[in-house]
C-alpha cells in the first residue's frame, strides 16, 4: 500500500493547472510520466534532492490511469483530494452539481466503515 503516494499524485496534479488538463486528457501517460519523474521529488525541500523508494502498487497505478475514483476511494486515497481534482477535471462536462451527484451515485454501495485514509 502506498496511500501516501496516491495522495501525493492527487495533491501535485490538483495544484498545477497544466497538469490538471494533462491528466484529464491522457491519464495513463500522465501517471507513467509522473511516477517516473516526479514521484520521488521531495516537496518543500532543497531542489535536486529526492527519495529513492516511492512507487505505486499495480492496483493504485491502474486506478489512477483509468480515472477510477471509486477504486481510489476503496484504496484509501484522501477523499477530499480525489473529489477536488475530479471536480476540476469533469465538472465542466455536466449540469451544475451533476458531476458531484454522479460521483455520489457511483459510490452509493459503499457502507461504513469507509476505508482507512491514514497515511
Amino acid at each position, binding site marked *: 500500500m502506498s496511500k*501516501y503516494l496516491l*495522495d*501525493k499524485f492527487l*495533491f501535485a496534479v*490538483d*495544484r498545477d*493547472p497544466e497538469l490538471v488538463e494533462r491528466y484529464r486528457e491522457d491519464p495513463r501517460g500522465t501517471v507513467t510520466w509522473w511516477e517516473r519523474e516526479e514521484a520521488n521529488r*521531495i*516537496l*518543500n*525541500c532543497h531542489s535536486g534532492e529526492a527519495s529513492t523508494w516511492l512507487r505505486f502498487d499495480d492496483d493504485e497505478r491502474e486506478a489512477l490511469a483509468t480515472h477510477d*475514483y471509486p477504486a481510489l*476511494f476503496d484504496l484509501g486515497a*484522501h*477523499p*477530499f*483530494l*480525489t*473529489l*477536488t481534482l475530479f*471536480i*476540476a477535471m469533469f465538472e465542466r462536462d455536466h449540469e451544475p*452539481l451533476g458531476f*458531484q*451527484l454522479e*460521483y*455520489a*451515485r457511483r*459510490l*452509493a*454501495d*459503499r457502507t*461504513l*466503515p*469507509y476505508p482507512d*485514509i*491514514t*497515511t
Partner: protein
Amino acid sequence: MAELVAVIASTHHPFYYRASTSTGPDRPDFADEWVRKVEAFRATLTAARPDVLVMVGSDHFHQLWLDNMPQFLIGKAPFYDANFYNEEREFGLPRMLMTGQEDLSAYLLREGLDAGFDLAFSNELRIDHSITCPIITLRPQNDLPIVPVYTNIFAPPLPRPRRFVQLGQTIRELVEAWPEDKRVAVIGTGHLSLELGGPRQFGPHGPDPEFDAKAVEWIAGGDLEGCLSEVTLDSLHLPGNATHGFMDFMLMMGVAGEGRKADYVDTYDLFHTMEAYFTWYPKGAGK
C-alpha cells in the same frame, strides 16, 4: 490588559461568496435568505468593536502537506496572502491579503509552548478558505489584523477532541492575559456533519441532520461535557467522512467556556451541509 470581546464559531461555506455575489439567473434561490442571515451574524461581531481577530481554521492540503504535517500551528507574519488557485477554480474565491498581529502571534506561541502545547509556527503562511470565508462573511472590509491558528482536522492521525477543547481553553486564558490594551475577538470555523468524496455528499441537506441538531444544541448550550462524552475520533466518521471539522467547533466551545450559553444562535439548512452561526460575549453585549 486585553479584553476578549467576542467568541464566534461558524461553519465556513466556500460557496457563500459566489452565491451572495451572483445576480440574475445565476443567483440561487437560497441566496437572499443566506445573505440576510450572514449580515445579522456579522452585526454580532461589529457590535463587539474588536481591534484584533484570532482566526481558528484548518488548511485543506494547500500549504501544509503530509511530508511535514503540524497538528496545531500559529502563523507569525506581518502579512498573509490568502486563497489558492484551486479555491479560485472551484469556488470563485478572490485572492486576498491580510495584515498580521505579529506581537500577539509571538505571545501566543511563547505562552502556548509554556502551557504544554508544542505549537508549530509559520513565518510565511498563505491562508485558505477556512479563514477567508469568515472574513468574507463577518468582516468583509478586511480591515483588522489577524492571528491565524491552524488545526489538523484533515490528515490522520489527528489530536483527540479533548485536545481541541483544551487548546481553546488555553487560547482564552492567554488572550485575557495579553498585556496590551486591545479588544480581541476569537473566531473559529468548522463543520457540522459533512461528507466529501463519499456516497452521502451533496445531498438535499447535511448527511446527518440528527447529528447536526444535537451539535447545535451542544454548542448553543455550552454543553462541553455532554459533547465530549459522545464525540470521539471514531464517532465522527458516522455523521459524514469530513465531520472531524466539528472539532474546531469544540475548540471554540473551549474558548467560550463550559456551560456558557451562546448569546446568538442561527442555522440555515442548505443542500450538502447545514450552516451554523454562534456568538458569545464574555463581557456582555456592547461592553
